[in-house]
C-alpha cells in the first residue's frame, strides 16, 4: 500500500496521459518541498508550545460568520442541548396550560380547538424537538471526548443536522403562534389527519416538521455511528468502550432503521393531502391502518431511542459515584443490543384495539413483555454496582435513585398494558398517559437532569450549586409522583386521554386536581434547574479537569476542553483509563499540527489505521440547510417547489463538497 502523503507520481498517477508527464513531475517536486515544512506533535513539540499551535490551527473564524460556519462538535452539541431545553420549557408550559384546563370538570378555561392544539404541540414538541435531540446533543458533545478524538466524523454534516433541527422547530412553533398549530395528536392518525377531515395547513406543517427533524436525526445518527466505529482512541477496543458510547451506538443504528418509516409515512400523508394520492384513503383501495403500522414501526423504537441514552447516563453516573465499573459490563452491553433488536418487533402493541387477528394476541403480549428481561437485567446491574461499591449521594446520584424508583413503576405498568386483555381497557386512557410519563420523565428526564449536572463542569468549567441541585431534585421527584401517580387512578376510573374536559360526578375531580398541583411543582423545579445552571455559569465553583474523580477520557482534558480536545491522541489500556493509569496519560504522536487532522482506528481492535484530514469551517452546510428548508416549507403550498428547489440545493451541496482549493496539497483537506 503506497503512502500517499507522498502523493507521488508512481503512487497515484498510474500511467498518465503523456503530455501531462512534466506537469505532474513538477507538481511532485513542489509537493516534496512543501512536505518538508509539515509540523507534527511529538516529545519535542508538546505542552504550552503545542497547545498554542493547535489552537491557532483549530480555532474557527470569529464573529457571526464563524458562528454559522463552525464545525466544532462541542459548539454544535451545546447548541443542540440548549435548543432542546428551550423546547422542553415550551412544551412544559403547554402541559401546564392543559393541567389548568383539566383541574376542574366541565371547565371552560380553554376551548376544544385550542386544547387539541395544546396536546398535539406538547407531544410533538416533547418527542421530536426535546427528547430525541437533547440526547443527540449530549452525545455529540461528549462522545468525541469520551473516545479520545478531536472531532466527530463528517463535522459539516453535523452542523447541517443542527440547522435542519432548528428550522423544523421554528416551523412548528411559528405555526402554533399564528394559531395554525397542528391538532391531530402527536401520531396524527389518518383519516382524521387526511385531506378530508383536516383541511387547511395545520397537518402539513406537522408533517414537514417531521421531515426536518428526521433528516436532522438521521444525519446525526450517521455521524455518531462513524465517529464511534472509526474515531476511537488506539486501544479502545469494542470491549473497552464505555457503556454510554455503546448505548449511543445502538441508538444511532436504531435511528437509522426506524426514522425512515415515519419520514415515509408523513411523505405519503402530505402527498395524499397535496397531490391527491390515496395511500390512506379507504374509499380508493387505500388503508387507514397503513399509517398506524408505519408510524408505530418508528414510534415504538422511538421510545427506546429516548430511553437507551438515558440508561447510558445512568451507567456513567453509577460508575463514577459508586467508585467502581458497572457490574457485569458485558451483560449491560447485551441488554442494550437486545433491547434495540426487540424494539422493532413490538409496534403492534399500540394497535391492540384496532381489531387484530385474535390468534396473534398471546404472541404480541409475550413479545411486548419480553423487553422487560434486558431492562430488568440492566436495573439489577446498577443496583449490584451500588451494593458492591461505595455510593456517594451527590446530585447526579440522587437522580439515579429517583430514576430507579420511578422508572420501574412505569416499566411495570408497561407490562400491564402489554397484555391484550388489560390493554383493551387501559388503552387511550390516563393509565397509559401515566405509564409513558413514568418512563419518559422517570426513565429519561431524571437521568438527563442528573447527567447535565454531572457534565456541566466539563462543559462550562464551573460546578452547579449543590444545595439548589438537591432542592431541585426533591421538587422534581415528589412533584412528579404527585402529578402522575393519580393518572393511573383517573385512567382506571374511565378517563380517556385527549379530552379537553370531563363531566363531574365520575370521581375524576380529585385525581385531576392533584395532577395539576404536581405539574406546577415539577414546572417550578425545572425553572429552578435552569436558574441554577445560569447562575452557576458566573458564580459556580471552578471545577478543574476532573472534579468527580471519574474514570473516562473526557475528564483527562481541561474543563472546558480546548477546541482540538486532545493535544496528543490518548491511548486506552483498560475500560476505566483514568483509574488504572500511572497518573500519566499514554498518548500517540505524529498528527499534523499545522493542519486539522485526526486519527482513525480499526473498527474492532482500534489499532491506528489512517490519518484523516478534518473539514475546515464552512458556511455551506448552513446555506444548504436554508435551501433544503425553503423547499420543504414551499412544498406545503405547491408540489412544484420540489422541482424548482432541487437546483439551489444541488448548488449548495456541490459547493459544500467541492475542495476548497484545486491546487494539490501535500495532504489534501477535503470533507
Amino acid at each position: 500500500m503506497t503512502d500517499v502523503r507522498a502523493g507521488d507520481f508512481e503512487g497515484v498517477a498510474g500511467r498518465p496521459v503523456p503530455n501531462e508527464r512534466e506537469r505532474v513531475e513538477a507538481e511532485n517536486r513542489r509537493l516534496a518541498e512543501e512536505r518538508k515544512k509539515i509540523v507534527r506533535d511529538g516529545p519535542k513539540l508538546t505542552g504550552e508550545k503545542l497547545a498554542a499551535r493547535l489552537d491557532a490551527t483549530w480555532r474557527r473564524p470569529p464573529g457571526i460568520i464563524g458562528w454559522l460556519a463552525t464545525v466544532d462538535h462541542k459548539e454544535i452539541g451545546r447548541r443542540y442541548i440548549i435548543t432542546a431545553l428551550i423546547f422542553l420549557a415550551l412544551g412544559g408550559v403547554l402541559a401546564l396550560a392543559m393541567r389548568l384546563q383539566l383541574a376542574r370538570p366541565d371547565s371552560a378555561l380553554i376551548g376544544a380547538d385550542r386544547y387539541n392544539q395544546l396536546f398535539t404541540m406538547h407531544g410533538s414538541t416533547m418527542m421530536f424537538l426535546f427528547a430525541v435531540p437533547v440526547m443527540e446533543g449530549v452525545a455529540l458533545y461528549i462522545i468525541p471526548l469520551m473516545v479520545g478524538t478531536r472531532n466527530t466524523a463528517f463535522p459539516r454534516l453535523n452542523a447541517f443536522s443542527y440547522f435542519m433541527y432548528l428550522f423544523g422547530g421554528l416551523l412548528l412553533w411559528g405555526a402554533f403562534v399564528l394559531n395554525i398549530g397542528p391538532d391531530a395528536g402527536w401520531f396524527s392518525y389518518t383519516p382524521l389527519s387526511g385531506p378530508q377531515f383536516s383541511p387547511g395547513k395545520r397537518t402539513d406543517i406537522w408533517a414537514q416538521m417531521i421531515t426536518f427533524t428526521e433528516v436532522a436525526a438521521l444525519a446525526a445518527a450517521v455521524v455518531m455511528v462513524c465517529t464511534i466505529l472509526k474515531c476511537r482512541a488506539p486501544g479502545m477496543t469494542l470491549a473497552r468502550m464505555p457503556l454510554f458510547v455503546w448505548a449511543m451506538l445502538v441508538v444511532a443504528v436504531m435511528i437509522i432503521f426506524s426514522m425512515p418509516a415515519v419520514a415515509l409515512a408523513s411523505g405519503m400523508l402530505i402527498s395524499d393531502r397535496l397531490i391527491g394520492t390515496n395511500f390512506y384513503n379507504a374509499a380508493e383501495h387505500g388503508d387507514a391502518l397503513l399509517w398506524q403500522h408505519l408510524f408505530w414501526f418508528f414510534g415504538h423504537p422511538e421510545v427506546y431511542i429516548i430511553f437507551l441514552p438515558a440508561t447510558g447516563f445512568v451507567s456513567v453516573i453509577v460508575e463514577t459515584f459508586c467508585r467502581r465499573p458497572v457490574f457485569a459490563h458485558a451483560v449491560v452491553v447485551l441488554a442494550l443490543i437486545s433491547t434495540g433488536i426487540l424494539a422493532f418487533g413490538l409496534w403492534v402493541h399500540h394497535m391492540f384495539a384496532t381489531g387484530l387477528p385474535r390468534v396473534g394476541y398471546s404472541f404480541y403480549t409475550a413479545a411486548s413483555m419480553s423487553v422487560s428481561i434486558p431492562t430488568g437485567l440492566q436495573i439489577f446491574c446498577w443496583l449490584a454496582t451500588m451494593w458492591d461499591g461505595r455510593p456517594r449521594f451527590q446530585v447526579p446520584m440522587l437522580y439515579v435513585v429517583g430514576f430507579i424508583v420511578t422508572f420501574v413503576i412505569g416499566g411495570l405498568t408497561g407490562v400491564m398494558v402489554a397484555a391484550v386483555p388489560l390493554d383493551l381497557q387501559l388503552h387511550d386512557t390516563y393509565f397509559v398517559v401515566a405509564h409513558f410519563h413514568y418512563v419518559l420523565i422517570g426513565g429519561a428526564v431524571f437521568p438527563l437532569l442528573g447527567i447535565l449536572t454531572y457534565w456541566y463542569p466539563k462543559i462550562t468549567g464551573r460546578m452547579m450549586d449543590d444545595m439548589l441541585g438537591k432542592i431541585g431534585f426533591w421538587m422534581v421527584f415528589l412533584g412528579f409522583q404527585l402529578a402522575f401517580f393519580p393518572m393511573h387512578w383517573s385512567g382506571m376510573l374511565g378517563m380517556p386521554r385527549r379530552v379537553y374536559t370531563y363531566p363531574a360526578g365520575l370521581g375524576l375531580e380529585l385525581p385531576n386536581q392533584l395532577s395539576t398541583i404536581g405539574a406546577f411543582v415539577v414546572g417550578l423545579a425545572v425553572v429552578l434547574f435552569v436558574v441554577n445552571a445560569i447562575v452557576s455559569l458566573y458564580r459556580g465553583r471552578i471545577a478543574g479537569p476532573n472534579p468527580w474523580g471519574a474514570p473516562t477520557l473526557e475528564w483527562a482534558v481541561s474543563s472546558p476542553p480546548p477546541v482540538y480536545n486532545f493535544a496528543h491522541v490518548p491511548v486506552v489500556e483498560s475500560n476505566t483509563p483514568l483509574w488504572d493509569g500511572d497518573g500519566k496519560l499514554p498518548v500517540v504522536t505524529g498528527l499534523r499540527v499545522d493542519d486539522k487532522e485526526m486519527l482513525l482506528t480499526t473498527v474492532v481492535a482500534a489499532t491506528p489505521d489512517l490519518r484523516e484530514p478534518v473539514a475546515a469551517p464552512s458556511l455551506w452546510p448552513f446555506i444548504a440547510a436554508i435551501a433544503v428548508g425553503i423547499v420543504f416549507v414551499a412544498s406545503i403550498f405547491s408540489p412544484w417547489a420540489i422541482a424548482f428547489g432541487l437546483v439551489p440545493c444541488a448548488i449548495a451541496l456541490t459547493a459544500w463538497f467541492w475542495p476548497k482549493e484545486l491546487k494539490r496539497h501535500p495532504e489534501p483537506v477535503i470533507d
Partner: protein
Amino acid sequence: MSFRRQGRAAVLALLLGACSYQRYQSDFGAAATQGRQFLTLFWIFLGVCLFMYALVIAFLVAGILRRRRATDANVVETGRHHQSHPLMRTTLIGWAALIGVGLTALAIASFFADRSMAEAATGEKLSVTVTGNQWWWDIRYNSDDASKTLRTANELHLPLGVPVRIQLASNDVIHSFWVPSLAGKQDLIPGRETGITIVPKKTGIFRGQCAEYCGTQHAHMALVVVVESYADFIKWWDHQLQPAPAPANPLTLAGYNYVTSGPCSACHNIGGTPASGQVAPDLTHLASRKSLAAGALPMGKGNLYGWVADPQSLKPGNKMPTIGLEPQQLHAVVAYLETLK
C-alpha cells in the same frame, strides 16, 4: 421514603375507586363477563408487579445502607474495583430466572383470560350495528324481520345475560367504542368491519365514551348504555318501533310543521313524518332518551331550549348549525320535541 406512601396510596386509590364509582363509568364496573375477567387479570398483574417492585426497592435500600461498611467494598480506593463480590454473579442468574418465571406466569394468565373472554362471547342472540360519526353514535338494531329493524342514536339498550354482537363501522374518522363498566374498547375504522360481543351481567345505566381521538368534540362523544331485563328490553324495542306521536295541540303542531318542513328535516329523521334526513341522530323518540347531543347534556326542557337555540355554544364545532329561530318558533319546536317520548 416517599415511594412507600406512594405504594399505599396506590392500593387505597384503587380500592376507593373500586367501591364508589363502579356503577357508572369505570374499569371496576365489572358489569359484563369481559369486565369481570379484566378485573381478575388486573389484580393478578398488579400482585406480581408489586412483588417485583418490592424486590427492586429492597435491593436499592440494601445497597444504600451497605455503603457504611467501607473496608471490603470493591472500589477504586481499595484498588479492587475490577473485582466484584461472588454473591452478585449467582444473584444475577437468580434474578434473570425470576423475571423469566414472572413473565411466563403473566403471559399464561393473560392467555387464559383472553380465551375465556373469547368463549363467553359466543352464541350471539342479538345483533346491533353501531356507526361512529363526528361526534355521535348511530345505532341500528338488526332483525331478519325488516319491520323490526330499529334506528336510534346515542343510547344503547341491552338485555341482561344475552350475548350481544355489536358490529362497528365509521362514516368518517376512527372512533373507539368503549363502555368501561362492561368491556374493553374496540375501534371503529372506516373501510373495515370490526365488532365486539358483550354479555351484560348487571342491570343498570352505564356511560360509554369514544376512546379514540376523533377531532374537535371527541370529549363530548359519549353514549348511554342501559342494561335491563329481557322483558323490559323487548318492551323498549317495541316502543321504539312506534312512529312518533302526532302533534296534539296548536303549539306542538307549529313545532311539528317547522321541524318537518324546515332545515331540521334535511338531516334528522322522525319516524312517521316527512322528516327523513339520515346524516344526523334519529329523533323519533328523542325525549325518551337520557341525554342530549351524545351525552353532552342531560335530557330536559332547559337543555332542549339551549341546544335548539344555539348548539354551537353548547358543543362548539359540532356539525349542527345554529339556525337562529324566532322565540315563538323555538317554543314550538321544543314543545314538539318534548312529545317525542
